[in-house]
């Protein structure tokens, strides 16, 4: 790649030759020389960029690249699977529970197993304040005995939950204490997680 400064110098040389040959006007020579030397020297940042030999791009070109990449991002958003969370609400159905790294805000979480008997059910999900009542967060696993189970890491404290059977029927845990929810009037279950 030809450096921009080299190109300027070549232009100046050409004009100087023409000026000297045609007019030999010293003022014109001085003007051209002043203009050439007044050009700013390339900055260190610019020299660093030049060293990488990056492709030259106009503002329009840069904008087009940006639009294409953002469009690719939107496409990926629709195509890529949701990367978050299987792990936090780990659907193991068995111990041991996934280990949360020390940097994880749920590092103090305690493995808590839930069990629900529903031999005729097609699907059972655990919903509660710990997973914002999202039905897809913690599906239970059916064991051959017809018992459904899931083990999830819960933070120490009091948690309210229920089982969602076949995506429609909400049932309290018969093995746990119940509480009637003041806002929606439906019975839920309560688990006290003691901490470690």
């Amino acid at each position, binding site marked *: 790649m030809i450096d921009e400064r080299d190109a300027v110098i070549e232009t100046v040389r050409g004009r100087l030759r023409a000026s000297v040959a045609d007019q030999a006007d010293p003022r014109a020579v001085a003007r051209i020389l002043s203009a050439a030397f007044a050009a700013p020297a390339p900055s260190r940042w610019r020299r660093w960029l030049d060293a990488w030999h990056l492709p030259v791009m106009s503002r329009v070109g840069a904008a087009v690249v940006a639009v294409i990449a953002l469009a690719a991002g939107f496409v990926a958003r629709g195509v890529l699977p949701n990367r978050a969370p299987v792990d936090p609400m780990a659907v193991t159905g068995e111990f041991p529970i996934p280990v949360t790294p020390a940097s994880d805000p749920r590092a103090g979480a305690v493995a808590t197993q839930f069990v629900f008997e529903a031999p005729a059910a097609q699907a059972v999900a655990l919903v509660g304040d710990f997973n914002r009542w999202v039905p897809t967060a913690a599906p239970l696993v059916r064991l051959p005995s017809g018992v459904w189970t899931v083990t999830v890491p819960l933070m*120490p404290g009091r948690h309210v939950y229920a089982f969602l059977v076949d995506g429609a029927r909400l049932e309290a845990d018969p093995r746990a204490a119940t509480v009637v929810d003041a806002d929606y009037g439906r019975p839920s279950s309560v688990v006290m997680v003691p901490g470690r």
Partner: protein
Amino acid sequence: MMPTLSSHMRAAGVALVGLMCGAPLVVTAPHAQAPSQAIALAIPDAKARQAVEREIARAVSRGLPSAPLVAKAMEGITKQAAPDRIRSAVAAQAQRLEQARGLLGPTPSEAELVSGAEALAAGIPTAMLKQVRAAWPAQSVVMPLDVLTELVARGVPPKQALERVVTLMRRGATPVQIAGLGAAVQADVAAGLAPDAALEVRARGVMSLLPSPAAAAALAPSGRRP
């Protein structure tokens, strides 16, 4: 005027930096917005949905956290409540969170606000939340509030539950010990023991593990809340 090479490079640099910052945000957006999208999907009626979203936005503009409110809306959706009931529940939750913020001040954590709101929903008087905060001004009161709520939910009179919990806090009990008290009383009541009797027995058990009042005062926690 012809654009110079450096202006080209600057434009390219700006575009690339923008892409590097913007594209990952676009790709990761679905998870961050999942509950809101779930609300949108679950409440097809635009008017009803907007009413719920307005309640949440109003609460957020008052400085309240959005997560507990979105969770309250999701709870209603999962429980197949009518949209108007969901809106009322979200508004009530916002009110309780705001009340808890005033009672647990000056800077309660989000978890403390949620536990405070749950305590208020369980019928625990507002003055009791202040007493719990006063007992542990510098430590998280999530666990004491949760246990207090659970004791009252099991049938222990609020005054007795508060006395025992605050005594344990002042005597230097750890959050784990306080949580253990709540779990033990819950199990005892499920096994048929009277709630107040279960609390007396279990509180005595925890108390026996604690240092004397004088030693506890000397060891009083002075650290910051987690």
